[in-house]
């Protein structure tokens, strides 16, 4: 099967949906002739025209609210925010309007919109352009939250997100845009709420999201060299969360490491760890659940500092080893 980049996969999903469904359109800053800040929509203006690839003013409150209103009245808008950090300005429309309308209205109306936005650090864009704020939206009933870790997932999940009748926040990780994998050409859908086991293993489970998935896979192969078989589970969507797959994995391995790039304090890792600890998997745990997350700092500019804010492959290896050798470790440290 052909390989294309994550960025191309996103564009392909968008284009196929737009060909398929007249109600789907895109709006966002510089998505027209510029092709979007990261180039995702490059060429789409030419194919779909300026009515469906709507270049907007720099007005995140207006464009997010316009998406809500359009969705409520029968369209399927796909909104691009140039950096996920700017969700701060769209927050009211997302949280107080989009997420709540159906419930507030007693089950009438729906808001089938997708907010696509690049997140994460690693490009030197510093504190206001590098955050991973998915925990905020995952905390809000009424929203769904997607974080694809590879192009083939991104393509199928984006179709599912656009076809979904609820507001979906779709995070594209900046550093993944250029990664490639095998992506089927035809349109396909990956259901929201279905985790993927990216690698099977028996000794420990790493639940990793977005850019942490390739790192977890690297950690797993290094650990395998030392005879430790790590299972890597990618939830793919935080909401809905595929608890079952994670529980089953932990029941098998007895050890759980949760790794995300977002700041550890208050990150969604706490939710995953606690959910599993509250589940039937608790009795299968051979070591405490561990979490890796971003350092408790705004993302710094200097590349070395920037890199140090995010969990590394080595951090993952160390954590897994610590869990695997928990009893010995406890004797030495306890």
């Amino acid at each position, binding site marked *: 099967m052909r390989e294309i980049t994550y960025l191309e996969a996103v564009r392909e999903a968008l284009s196929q949906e737009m060909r398929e469904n007249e109600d789907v*359109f895109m709006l966002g800053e510089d998505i027209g002739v510029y092709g979007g800040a990261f180039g995702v929509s490059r060429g789409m203006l030419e194919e779909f025209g300026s*009515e469906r690839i*709507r270049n*907007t*003013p720099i*007005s995140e*409150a*207006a*464009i*997010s*609210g*316009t*998406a*809500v*209103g*359009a*969705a*409520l*009245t*029968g*369209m399927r*808008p796909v909104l691009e925010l140039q950096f996920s950090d700017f969700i701060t300005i769209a927050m*009211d*429309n997302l949280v*107080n*309007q989009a997420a709540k*309308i*159906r*419930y*507030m*209205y*007693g*089950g*009438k*109306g*729906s808001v*089938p919109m997708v907010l696509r936005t690049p997140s994460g650090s690693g490009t030197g864009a510093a504190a206001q352009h590098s955050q991973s704020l998915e925990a905020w939206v995952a905390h809000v*009933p*009424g929203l*769904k939250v997607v974080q694809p870790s590879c192009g083939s997932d991104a393509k199928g999940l984006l179709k599912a997100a656009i076809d979904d*009748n*609820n507001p979906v926040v779709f995070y594209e990780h900046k550093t993944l845009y250029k990664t490639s994998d095998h992506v089927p050409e035809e349109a396909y859908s990956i259901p929201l709420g279905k985790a993927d086991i990216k690698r099977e293993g028996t000794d420990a489970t790493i639940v990793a999201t977005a850019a942490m998935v390739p790192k977890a896979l690297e950690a797993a192969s290094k650990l395998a060299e030392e005879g430790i078989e790590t299972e890597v589970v990618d939830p793919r969507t935080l909401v809905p969360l595929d608890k079952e797959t994670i529980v089953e994995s932990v029941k098998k391995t007895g050890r759980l490491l949760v790794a995300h790039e977002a700041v550890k304090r208050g990150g969604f890792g706490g939710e995953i760890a606690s959910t599993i600890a509250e589940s039937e998997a608790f009795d299968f745990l051979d070591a405490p659940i561990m979490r890796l997350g971003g350092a408790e700092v705004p993302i710094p500019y200097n590349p070395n500092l920037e890199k140090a804010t995010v969990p590394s492959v080595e951090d993952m290896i160390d954590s897994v080893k610590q869990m695997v050798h928990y009893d010995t470790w406890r004797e030495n440290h306890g």
Partner: protein
Amino acid sequence: MIQIPEHLSKERLLDLYEQMWLIRYFDEKVDEFFAKGMIHGTTHLAVGQEASAVGSCAVLKEEDKITSTHRGHGHCIAKGADINKMMAELFGRETGYCKGKGGSMHIADLDKGNLGANGIVGGGFAIANGAGLTSRMKDLGYVVLCFFGDGASNEGSFHEALNLASIWDLPVVFICENNQYGMSGPVKDMINIEHIASRSGSYGIPGKVVDGNDVFDVMNAVGEAVEHAREGNGPSLVECKTYRWKGHSKSDAKKYRTREEEKEWRDKDPIKRMKEAMLEKEIVTEEEVEEIKQQAKRKIEESVEFSKESPEPDLSTLLTDVYAD
């Protein structure tokens, strides 16, 4: 004396007149129940502001849409809502518009084109744009009225939405109900220009000031703006100068304004003015208008009966309606 447009039939006039009374009685009833602790939460009453809601919605077609505000009962009634379902919602009953989940600030009537009240000041601006965009992209021909207050015109969402509506020529009419105050903030302290309508100048769209207590003045101005929009010429801003008679919400000592000022505005009662104009022109008799008034009153009382008899929502409904299938 206010001027009655030629083209309005007696029937239509009485219909509008009844709407004004429905709004007034509805909100006075709600006021009473809040005072008695019979409904909980909070509410914002439009008593005194009936003409801007009724006059604006009077020029709409059934398929046209509105976005409303926290002070939304009037808009809702003027857009043709079922009074029983409205009252039942305030009572938090299963038969209410929102099955008791929304309350006063979240009543919507999508079938009638009311896209909903909104608890967020300024929350409706961009939603109205979105509905207008749908109208344009699907070529549905409808127009959207976006109601908002003087206070809301200081939210960033006002600016962003009017700019967007202008450059995209969206069929949206932005209707400012300038009742002189936010919650307590006097518009004259909060805005350094005389007319909010002048802000249209920032977006290159028409702006007009009308006597918001003259239902016909409102109709004329909004009617023009709606035609302008329907013909594809984009948005307008219409400012209705009016006044709320009651406090901002259920608890308000109204320390920020004088009793004289209140009285001045009460003298400009939009219902009384409409009645007097109709009587003066001998379109209706005293008896006819009195009958309409009583009829409105009865409808409100019926809605109260309906609400009281309606069941509370079952606790099992708590978790439903969060996500659409």
